[in-house]
């Protein structure tokens, strides 16, 4: 199962390296969202500084939607879904591989977006331990739930509109948790942030288990 996961993750990441869709389209989109927030919320009155953690995670969440759409668009083309089913790969392995590939892409995006926030919003960054741990857990949560719902919407004519409807309400706890954890870290009181990391860990575990068990049936078309 893990071998299959690494094979799939390697394939997805190699595909990203060759096509650079996430790098050339999703990342600029995320940075654009940051700039748009600055337009919408007056940067001189301190609103932007207060809202920084929330805006950051909103930008990550919307970019993640695009990355997930992309992750399933490559499998939707030209009979790849059939080929995957015929491949003999463990569905649980396919799920974990996709989660891994999306997570890696999101983490790269988060780092670059973090630099963007630090520069554009002049955020003073501290509380590194909590920032890193909560980012990793939140990313795993988004990728696991997103991959499960991604395959749920895959192959349907309404997939582009269905995925946000299904995914965003479910990810509400992750958005709340990651934002609060970042606020706590930036405010220099990390102890308030750790319970959120715990909650997000439960969320991530739930969705990893659901994906490992549910991916096989979901991959079937009839």
């Amino acid at each position, binding site marked *: 199962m893990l071998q299959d996961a690494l094979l799939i993750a390697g394939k997805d990441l190699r595909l990203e390296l060759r096509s650079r869709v996430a790098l050339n389209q999703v990342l600029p989109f995320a940075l654009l969202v940051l700039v748009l927030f600055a337009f919408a919320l007056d940067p001189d009155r301190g609103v932007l500084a207060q809202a920084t953690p929330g805006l950051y995670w909103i930008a990550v969440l919307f970019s993640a939607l695009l990355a997930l759409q992309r992750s399933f668009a490559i499998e939707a083309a030209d009979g790849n879904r059939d080929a995957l089913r015929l491949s003999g790969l463990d569905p649980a392995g396919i799920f974990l591989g996709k989660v891994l590939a999306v997570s890696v892409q999101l983490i790269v995006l988060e780092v670059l977006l973090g630099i963007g926030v630090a520069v554009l919003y002049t955020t003073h960054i501290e509380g590194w331990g909590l920032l890193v741990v909560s980012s990793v857990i939140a990313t795993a949560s988004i990728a696991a739930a997103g991959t499960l719902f991604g395959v749920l919407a895959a192959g349907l004519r309404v997939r582009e509109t269905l995925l946000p409807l299904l995914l965003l309400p479910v990810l509400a706890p992750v958005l709340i948790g990651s934002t609060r954890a970042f606020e706590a870290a930036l405010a220099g009181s990390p102890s308030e942030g750790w319970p959120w990391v715990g909650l997000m860990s439960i969320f991530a575990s*739930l969705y990893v288990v659901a994906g490992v068990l549910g991916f096989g049936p979901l991959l079937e078309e009839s």
Partner: protein
Amino acid sequence: MTTQLSNTSSGPDSTASRGTRILGVLALVSMAALALFGLVLSPPDANQGEVVRILYVHVPSATFAYIGCLLTTVGSAMYLWRRSQWWELVAYASAEIATVFTAIVLVTGMIWGRPTWGVYWVWDARLTSTAMLLLLLLGYLAVRRLPADHGVRTRRAAILGLLLVPNVIIVRQSVQWWRTLHQKPTLLANGVGAEIEGLMLFALFVGFIAIGLVFTWLLIHRFRLAWLEDQVDEAGLDVAIAERRAEGAAS
């Protein structure tokens, strides 16, 4: 599509049966009793005044909305585990009813909030998580009603149904923490008071009975309706196979 008029046959021409008719009458009677006790006989609350009467319908509706969600999750689990079509229909029927109840809970909660809090909406933990629950249920229904193959949509919807209750728990927990970390839950202090008693308690009890009967009646009818939908879906398959074979034999 085979259209058979059954006006002359022995079967009923609706989803009603003798049992549900009795149940329906009981539900109507108990709703009338609820109106009597809730609106006329019970006294106004010392703190909330007349507004407390909203709670006689609001609280039971919330309870049965949650019961509906629980049934959806259980039904989805049984469908995925045992391949039980019966449980799949239970999950679908109760999800739709739970959606109606959740919407009612949300609207009555907002109406209760206006005189109590002065605004229709506050970011109260219960109100917010109910709104999220409504969105989750709408997602389930959207998938269950997809214009796709029957097996595809039931299986995909069942995965969502299975995750419904865990999701609700996590969402509630997160919203609860989110609110309590920032402000003390003073608003909830005027909620259902601890000292409701006598006729007020009885009115609430009647509310549970009445809403529970309505819920059960709706569940049975919606289940039969879903079962009919499946039958209509499957009808014509035999005809289609025969036509297809004739096409082959003729060539």
